């Protein structure tokens, strides 16, 4: 029981940390890391919920696996957009120099 509490309380604290990072840090990479921290915290809570001591509930495990894939996809899409913006800025700067 205490094990479950330690994991779930930590995960909720982590959720807040990620939330702060997303709001307060201006750099896009940090925002993305913060979002991933929030994601991991939810996964941690799900895994804590899955553990019933003697038996393991497989449904939260499956949810976490699905969630990981979705998180990868979302992060990659954001990164791609950031890379695009950076490339456009770079082009602009190059053409200004010439």
């Amino acid at each position, binding site marked *: 029981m205490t094990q*479950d*509490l330690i994991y*779930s*309380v930590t995960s*909720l*604290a982590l*959720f*807040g*940390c990620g*939330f*702060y990072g997303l*709001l*307060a840090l*201006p*750099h*896009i990479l940090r*925002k993305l890391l913060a979002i991933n921290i929030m994601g991991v915290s939810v996964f941690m809570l799900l895994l804590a*919920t*899955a553990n*019933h001591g003697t*038996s*393991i*509930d*497989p*449904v*939260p*495990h*499956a*949810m976490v*696996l*699905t969630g*990981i*894939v*979705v998180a*990868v*996809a*979302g992060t*990659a*899409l954001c*990164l*791609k957009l*950031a*890379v*695009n*913006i*950076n*490339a456009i*800025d770079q082009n602009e700067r190059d053409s200004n120099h010439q």
Partner: protein
Amino acid sequence: MFDRLVLHETSGTKPALKSSTKIACGLASFALSGGLIAALLLSERAGPGLAALTASRMDESGVENPVTAVLLNFRSYDTLLEIAVLLIVAVAMLSMQPSATNRSMVEVNHRHSGDPVLAGLLRWLVALATVLSGYLLWTGAYAPGGAFQAGSVIAGACVALKLSGRYHFFWHPLKARLLLTIGLAVFVLVGGFCATGDKRVLEYPLEYAGMLILIIELAATVSIAAILLLLFTGLQDDKPDATQAGRPST
């Protein structure tokens, strides 16, 4: 907070957020965490969830690993949609790539004289990764493992190939697009063809369940590997092709 998205950290300029805003953000996050923790401590947690129910129906699922049974049989619809989510990002990556219509999917830069040690290592590593991925896929039926794990191992091997500078991947040819979509296509087709007679969509016949799950997983592995590799190559700087095949990159 979302108005100013910074891509470069420029030293010397003033911080993007006022400290008062930061304190407000901190308080909000603290309240969020605190409130959730308080709610958690105040509430009872439910019984064993779906563990017992899943265990009781395991022998109808066609596999022995409960997580695989949930992912690919009981809640296969979620997994199908998850592959669709991956496909969205793959298409988004494609749409921004300069369309290189006349390239084949894998191009080998023969003139690239890479590190002989690296080349030798890769020769071992890629073969090993392929075997490992096959093992992960197979073992998913009765132990942790499965399509995503297998696919990411293959994608990792391909990323190593890409990083060695000798191999380049292009995603415009039909062959490449087939690799990207085969996972979802096989899943949708198998799911649809299950619905004959009085069966429902995604209801595998019991005697073929294990086989059908393996087929779906195999196709999903291919697509997941391809998409993950596409995500990696799509994120690399598409600098107007200094490293393209035909020109030595050193």
